């Protein structure tokens, strides 16, 4: 379960850390941990209700926030969902959302672990 996060992305964030300032990576992971579950549920709910627009917006948001944190597979999955939602392919969205929550949970867990270890 250590292959969900690309560590180099985290190093990039850490390198933005300025001395004497609050821990940047920690804050971003916290933001991810607090905001992302709502987006993930929004995608899952939208897939079930067929609300492609909500799905697209939520997937877009998840796509970039996960990318910054090196959650490449999650980001890739969101990107595909966003793309399918924009193209109006409900069936494809349904297929793409398969395993989304699991991938999110795994990615978040790995992130938390890394942050705690760093701290």
């Amino acid at each position, binding site marked *: 379960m250590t292959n969900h996060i690309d560590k180099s992305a985290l190093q990039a964030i850490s*390198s*933005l850390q300025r001395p004497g300032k609050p821990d940047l990576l920690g804050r971003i992971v916290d933001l991810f941990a607090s905001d992302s579950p709502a987006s993930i549920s929004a995608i899952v709910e939208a897939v079930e209700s067929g609300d492609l627009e909500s799905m697209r917006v939520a997937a877009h948001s998840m796509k970039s926030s996960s990318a*910054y944190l090196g959650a490449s597979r999650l980001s890739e999955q969101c990107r595909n969902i966003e793309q399918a939602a924009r193209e109006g392919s409900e069936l494809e969205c349904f297929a793409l959302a398969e395993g989304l929550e699991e991938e999110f949970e795994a990615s978040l867990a790995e992130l938390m672990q890394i942050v705690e270890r760093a701290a």
Partner: protein
Amino acid sequence: MPSPQEKYQAQVLAPSSGRLRPVVLHVDDDAASLLMAEGSLEDAGFDVVHAADGVQALQQFKTCEPDLIIMDAVMPVMDGFEAITHIRSNAMGAHVPILMITGLDDLDSITRAYDEGATDFLTKPINFFVLPHRIQYMLRSKRTADALRSSQAKLDNAQRIARLGHWDWNVVTNELTWSNEFGRTMGYPQNQLMGSWNGFLEKLSDDQRHSVRMAASQAVEEVRGFSVEFTLIKFSEAEQDRTIRLEAEPHVNEQGECTHLRGTMQDITERTNAQRQIHNLAYFDLVTGLPNRAQLNEQLNYALKMAKRRESKFALLFLDLDHFKQVNDTLGHDAGDDLLKQVSGRLTEVVRESDSVAVPADPLDENSNSKHTVARIGGDEFVVLLGSINRVEDAARVAERIAKTISLPYTINDTEVSVTTTIGISLYPADGQSAELLMKHADVAMYHAKEKGRNGYQFYSRGIHEQALARFSMESELKNAIENEELDLVYQPKFDVVSGQPAGVEALLRWDHPVNGAISPADFIPLAEETGLIMPLGRWVLQQACRQMKDWIDDGMEPIAMSVNCSPVQFIRGNMIKDVDEAISQSGLPSNLLEVELTESLFLQNIENGINILQSLKKIGVQISIDDFGTGFSSLSYLKRLPIDKIKIDHSFVQDLSRDPGDAAIVSAIIALSHNLNLSVVAEGVETAEQLDILRSYDCDEYQGFLASEPLSAGELLTWFESYKPEVRMRKVSGM
């Protein structure tokens, strides 16, 4: 303490508002992005403010006035595109750099971002190390663009103030581009900065267009610069016509052909007006508004040039107000100035009215009616330049009128004031060929006039003075002569050469002057012709002659023709046909008994016109004879085209008939030719029987002269005819 790099950046990037650090507004709904960017931006020397969507962005934009905006494209509530549109539509946001953040694979967004007014774009995921550099670059270009805009605005402003525009004509495509000021001047819509050269020319009036087009095409052809001025007719009533100067230089291609004309356009109306004002100050008298000495000199030189070219006359009147100094001394300088103004007004008025006196030499040439100029050249000295006069009397008449008008009383400060003027007159060409000499001689003449007593005029040349006076007085006397019955007609009989019977009489005008005695028509007819007096005079002669012949016939005389001499002036300027018609109908004389005698000069100017007049006369039924034949241009070829009845051979040929074989040959030829054309021939001035014998041998038809009778009064003639015995005369002749 800021690092040296920070210090440098702050100096370079600090906005003109005086803020130490540029403010970046970062708009993104992803809080993580905002957080990550914040650090590197602050490190690079920027202050950062955040907004999570478009609506927040607009609020922040208003309150923070950011120097640059980083805008995420896809956001809830209001997306980045809509936010940009709002910002750009605001005057404050027109030029602020906006960096749009789009998805890596989202080409549509990139295109749309630029359409809405984004300055640049960056794709996600953002490289936060590169971001500050990108922003620094954008701010630098913004500064450059600002400087350029400011420079353009300054240039535009300077051009507007200087009324200077520039333009570029692509000779090959005919396309014309121009600056704001050019567009403003030419009345193009504010945003239109290009069009066609022809379109530009269309805005000019016809003649102006022609000269600009010529100047430009010549410049293209000869590959050289040009400068041309034109008047731009006002586009609306509220405006005024503008004077515009176009200047350009050619730009050539590698073959040396002119492909562009690039140049300036300047509205020089104000400058031209100012020059005119300066000119007015330099050339006009401030007190009276009349031309001053400098202006007079120019006018005088112009008059000289024109008179030399046309071989015409003009007059210079030098005036001095008599005792003006007294007015100045007793009433003060203001009163003096007031008087000068009033005098100027009267002078101008008199001279303007005199325009009709001086008939232009050629009425078709309006320039020949050379302007008269009234100038003030010193304290109380004025000069009148009569640019075109026909006769010296014209100058005398104007001088007389001026003297009379100036001497009428003036009211100054409720006081009645009188001044008189003394006038000296010089004439071109008689009194000098240069401006200096004419001025000097007019001045001299004025002093002569003063010596003779003020309030008068004097010509520089005494001969001219007397001649002018004599003719001037003759003119007015002639006007009264008809009323005073000093004019009278005498009658010279004509006889048939063969039978010796009276063939007709010729009416001749006599002026018996109460003082000077008999004055010859040769002296006063030219004067009457010049003044136009010939018209009433000619009418009077026609009526008198017709009435006389009718009276004689009523008294029992055998009806014979009455000849009346008519001047070409009567035909050309008067209504001769009507005059003849009236004389005949009023007298009751049969029209064939009136014989109109004309000279060849009537046909000199326009032979067709002359023939038309003669044909109208023939319709009335009168006889027509050509007087003084042989002395004019006497073209025998035109003779047959004229509807005439008679030729009168001038007495000069008759005089030497017996001594000069040349004259004899001419007379013989004239008679033979005339008969060939069915014209009868009258010989004038026959004084000897020998002359009569020769004329008879040539088959001449009639004669007149002292041999038979001198001119007789109306009373004498009737008695003479009654006692006349042609047989006696014939015997006497053959007895010689």
